């Protein structure tokens, strides 16, 4: 296999894994808790911009550029986005379920607007460049550079996966599930549904912010155009295809959907004349939209679906319950 091919595959997988992180964040909010976030792009953008501001070298024409280490940037991104999610959740989670959807939609629109217009902080339409990339000193050797970056993302995804699996099986994760399946019963057991939902929403948001930051540092450049509603939509498609409620499904869906997306971009570039490519790209989005609706109608569980029993104790004590347990689609 040629060096270019390996480098390309590594690049593709790294990109796909940044989406996998977003998917894992969305899975905490939607898959495990049933909270609908229509503003994924906005939360990812907050993370990307915060990390970019913290780590880029000092820039004369805008605020900041603090030149801090990359890890500080990532941590700051996760904290800032978690805080933003907490505020949005605090405002809406106690209200009707779809008010959260409307509010997150508003967040996405507003974040995009701020990124575009608050030129003195976000760089305006031109965005922020020169975001430090991990292992930048190796950029002369594309193979080592791309493999090391892939390694970083694999470590991030693996750590997140292990942590989230642990959370999912912990008492905390099981309460979330109980609230999602039957809120009245959970309330009767003395669980404060609003507080648990709020925690899950903030944790999911923080993970999305981390995803935005890792992606920004991997690409090295961010602009408002990266965080349009289409991004929200892609992340949703990934989670639904892979299987919401299942962390492995979230990762699998991200790689699969990103693969289809990248391949269809190549197909459009080679099949259509240049003047028709914008139209063909629109048609591609139509197909993805119809695809998402079709999955919701035909196979709402996705490829992997949710594990029915997550508690170790229950699985050990009553293996027969596995088949008898209730269906897993999220109920209001």
């Amino acid at each position, binding site marked *: 296999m040629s060096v270019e091919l390996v480098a390309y595959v590594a690049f593709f997988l790294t990109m796909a894994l940044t989406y996998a992180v977003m998917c894992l964040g969305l899975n905490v909010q939607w898959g495990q808790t049933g909270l609908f976030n229509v503003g994924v792009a906005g939360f990812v953008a907050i993370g990307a911009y915060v990390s970019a501001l913290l780590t880029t070298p000092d820039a004369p024409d805008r605020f900041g550029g603090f030149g801090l280490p990359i890890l500080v940037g990532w941590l700051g991104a996760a904290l800032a986005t978690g805080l933003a999610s907490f505020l949005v959740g605090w405002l809406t989670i106690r209200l009707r379920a779809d008010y959260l959807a409307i509010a997150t*939609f508003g967040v996405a629109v507003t974040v995009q607007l701020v990124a575009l217009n608050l030129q003195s902080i976000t760089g305006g339409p031109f965005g922020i460049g020169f975001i430090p990339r991990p292992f930048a000193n190796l950029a002369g050797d594309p193979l080592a550079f791309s493999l090391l970056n892939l390694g970083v993302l694999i470590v991030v995804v693996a750590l997140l996966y292990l942590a989230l699996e642990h959370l999912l099986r912990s008492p905390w994760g099981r309460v979330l599930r109980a609230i999602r399946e039957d809120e009245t019963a959970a309330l009767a057991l003395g669980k404060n549904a609003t507080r648990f939902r709020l925690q899950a929403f903030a944790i999911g948001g923080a993970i999305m912010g981390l995803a935005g930051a890792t992606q920004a540092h991997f690409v090295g450049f961010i602009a408002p155009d990266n965080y349009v509603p289409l991004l929200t939509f892609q992340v949703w498609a990934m989670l639904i295809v892979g299987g919401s409620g299942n962390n492995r499904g979230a990762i699998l869906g991200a790689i699969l959907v990103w693969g289809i997306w990248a391949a269809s971009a190549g197909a459009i570039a080679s099949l259509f004349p240049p003047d028709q490519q914008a139209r063909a790209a629109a048609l591609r989005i*139509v197909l993805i939209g119809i695809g998402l609706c079709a999955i919701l109608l035909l196979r709402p569980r996705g490829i992997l679906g949710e594990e029915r029993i997550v508690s170790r104790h229950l699985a050990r004590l009553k293996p027969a319950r596995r088949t008898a347990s209730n269906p897993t689609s999220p109920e209001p």
Partner: protein
Amino acid sequence: MNPQLIMDGLIAGAMIGLGAIGITLTYSILRFANFAHGEMISWGAYLALATSGLLGSLSGALLKPIGPFSFGWSLPLAVLAAVALTAGLALLVDALLFGPLRKRRSAVIIMVMASFGASLALRSLLEFIFTSKPVYFSKALQIALPLGGGLRATPDQLLSLAVAAILVVAIHILLTRTAIGRSMRAVSENQQLAGVAGIDARKVIRTVWMLGAGLACIAGVMAGLLVQIRPYMGFDLLLPLFAAAILGGIGSVPGAMLAGLIVGLAEALGVQLIGAEWRAAVAFMILVFVLLLRPQGLFGRAE
């Protein structure tokens, strides 16, 4: 401060109000936030544009401007056809997507997500057919007439305001004085009980889609006539629409219209005070304040 912002705000508010009536009706009767409603506005505008172009090519006389307005008879005729076509589109989406989900008793939030998918597909389909280049009903320039008090408005703008006012009164009468209106309110109160009382819920749902889509189409034509037609025109209105529907109180038609005017005026004020590029944030601020201070809206009931 420039008094003209009142006129600009009222006109934008009338469009937002008409769209928000559709949102508030689907929300109170079908019980989910329909993110695809903005696309009914865009599709309505493009359908009217295509029909109007077709009529114009059949008979040039239809293109001759009527009196002081910028358009000929082809546009009013096309609007009638476009309202019917947009209503048909809404029924089609319901038959293919929301109907089967309802039958399966899917969670509210699955319906919201499906509407999100439908919104993206419908919007991109417009982009595919018509490309993203803005288009116009008429290239004619209109002179704004002075109305006194420093206000100016073009004949098209005044006509739009009048049409919006008539439509709101008509919808209000429909909901409060007719049998189908009473059925709609009954289903919005309690679907099971309404079914027991012999109300055909499917007919009510069909009516809601047709009403909402028809009003959205007219809002789209107004936006096309007064601003421009783009595939994103409806999507960009979505946040003001939701803000108006929630501010007015879910289920309240006069509330949606009044809140639409408030959002429109606030946007015009915001444009004047902080700049046009922040227009979209005004609706978000209103939304945040309503959710903080009075989540049930002006005319809604606390749950």
